């Protein structure tokens, strides 16, 4: 499978590829951000962003609306200017460099295809501007078209294409430029659910094929979890956590990160620390009952107010009372392969959700439950997680 790697073809007249392209090896830092901030007038959109995205990795920026993920992507692209801090690509400072000279290609949410040009011309536009020689350009276009299975669409106009086809053309336009970095700005948001699932796997396949660095913005955590090598969770302009999806899922560092990933959301309950051990902490919950968490205390003291978190799938309904955790079953939602139980604890903190395969109790019944120490998270008053034992 031919790779769209800048090193593969050596074309001296090619201005679409970046300069000095032989230096980036997989594993080395591709995009480096140090103290990057962005403000529009008085509004601060991003603050003190420190990230290093490795060459060849698929990095996903995820977060709620308004968190600044799109802005961060556009900073990398050069469509917005960096207000403070440094942005480097392959070791070169890029703050003042034009977008087209950064070795980057971008796929927009609305595809942004040129409406008056055929698919072929859309794919060729950037190449012509970069003065890629005719034969080479044609080769790249057909190669990309083949990769994305849009060869039969080359003579059509964008308005004659379906949403999914337009998306492929947009991706194809990026591929032909043979960039160092691909940027995706919520590319699947405008597609219907079924198409989204198939496009997701296609993009992952594409990444494996091309082995190029990809930065992907989405608000959909499923896309983040399934596609990313590492994810960046952004909230209100700063980074909550940066790491591989499963690590962020199982070892969230902040309340926000914990609550963002996972559906249904993680359950949170407040309480005070009653015991501090070498590798565990016991918390008395405000709503009644005690839990023990397998976390390193790390400066936490008895009497500290903390937030305890546990995922719905880790809640175990028990036969007898263990640790004083009880609740009344308010509602059971059956989804076929699993059910969601809505448990009420005297309306103290809102509902606790449990995700079970078989429902052991009916609505109206009172149940006891426990949370395994290994699946129990503790967050201090500032929302920071106490480090896990393992």
């Amino acid at each position, binding site marked *: 499978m031919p790779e769209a790697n800048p090193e593969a073809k050596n074309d001296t007249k090619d201005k679409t590829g970046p300069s000095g392209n032989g230096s980036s090896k997989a594993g080395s830092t591709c995009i480096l951000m140090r103290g990057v901030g962005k403000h529009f007038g008085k509004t601060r959109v991003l603050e003190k962003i420190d990230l290093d995205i490795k060459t060849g990795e698929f990095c996903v920026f995820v977060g709620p609306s308004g968190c600044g993920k799109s802005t961060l992507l556009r900073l990398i*692209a050069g469509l917005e200017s960096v207000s403070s801090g440094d942005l480097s690509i392959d070791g070169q400072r890029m703050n003042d460099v034009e977008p087209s000279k950064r070795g980057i290609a971008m796929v927009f949410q609305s595809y942004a295809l040129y409406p008056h040009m055929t698919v072929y011309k859309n794919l060729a536009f950037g190449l012509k501007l970069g003065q890629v020689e005719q034969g080479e350009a044609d080769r790249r276009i057909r190669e990309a078209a083949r990769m994305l299975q849009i060869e039969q669409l080359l003579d059509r106009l964008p308005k004659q294409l379906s949403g999914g086809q337009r998306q492929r053309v947009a991706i194809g336009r990026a591929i032909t430029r043979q960039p160092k970095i691909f940027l995706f700005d919520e590319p699947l948001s405008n597609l219907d659910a079924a198409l989204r699932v198939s496009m997701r796997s296609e993009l992952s396949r594409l990444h494996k094929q091309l082995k190029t660095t990809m930065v992907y913005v989405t608000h959909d955590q499923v896309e983040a979890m399934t596609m990313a090598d590492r994810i960046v969770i952004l909230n209100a302009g700063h980074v909550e956590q940066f790491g591989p999806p499963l690590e962020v899922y199982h070892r969230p560092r902040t309340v926000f990160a914990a609550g963002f990933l996972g559906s249904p959301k993680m359950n949170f309950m407040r309480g005070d620390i009653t015991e501090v051990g070498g590798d565990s902490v016991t918390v008395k919950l405000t709503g009644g009952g005690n839990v023990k968490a397998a976390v390193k205390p790390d400066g936490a003291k008895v009497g500290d107010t903390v937030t305890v978190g546990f995922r719905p799938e880790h809640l175990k309904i028990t036969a007898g009372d263990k640790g004083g955790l009880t609740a009344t079953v308010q509602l059971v939602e059956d989804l076929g392969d699993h059910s969601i139980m809505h448990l009420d604890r005297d309306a103290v903190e809102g509902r606790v959700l449990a995700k079970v395969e078989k429902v052991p109790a009916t609505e109206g019944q009172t149940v006891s439950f426990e949370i395994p120490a290994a699946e129990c998270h503790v967050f201090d008053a500032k929302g920071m997680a106490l480090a896990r034992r393992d």
Partner: protein
Amino acid sequence: MTGKVAARKGLFYLLVIAIIFYTLFPFYYAILSSLKTGTELFSVDYFPVTWNLGNYVSVFRDNPFATNIWNSVLVSFSTVALSLFLGLTAAFALARIKFRGRSLLLLTILGVSMFPQVAVLSGMFQMIRSLGLYNHLPGLVLAYMIFTLPFTVWVLTTFMRELPKELEEAAIMDGASSWTILTRVFMPLMWPALVTTGLLAFIAAWNEFLFALTFTLTNDERTVPVGIALMSGASTHEIPWGNIMAASVMVTLPLVVLVLIFQRRIVSGLTAGAVKG
């Protein structure tokens, strides 16, 4: 009840007929008169009695009318070309780039359309003379910019504002310069606005009288409006109405056809300017 409704409808259609009659009669009568020659003109007729095309021949023979038409064609097309070029480049800056003083600039440009022509007459006369353009058609084209630019810039800016930002950004990522974006990406998408402003500019240039009268001296540089206004007959006291009517019809017919074909565009262009103002 139906009697009342019928009466109202009858009145309505009577009104419609009255409007058509009022708007079209003068032109109809001009055509009528242009088909009469000599003494036939001295009698008043409501319907064509003869179909004499003599006037259409003599108007070219007795006057430099062909030259007038050719000059008007040259000037009008050049005016359109220049207005669109200047308007497009200016609109790009005004519509797509934020800079200080942008709205003030736009308002000032619009304000120029309020200038009385006489207020700039002497100054422009001097300027045209010093540029060596007196009694030359390019001088007229330049002068006409004073009334084509304001609405051209306004309409094109309004239209260009509506183009999606992501399209421009995609072009930037593709490495397009601002000029490339304007010509290869935006312009093809703007052709309705280009047609509208082009038409309005054409009609304005074709129609213009005061500057054409003041800035040309010899017959071979005169345009149609001036040519018609100055048409004189065989003797000094005789006004060649037949010729004048023939000239009028010839000059008006293509314009009317143009306007009828493009009436939607023209109407939207005119009202857009006024309503937004």
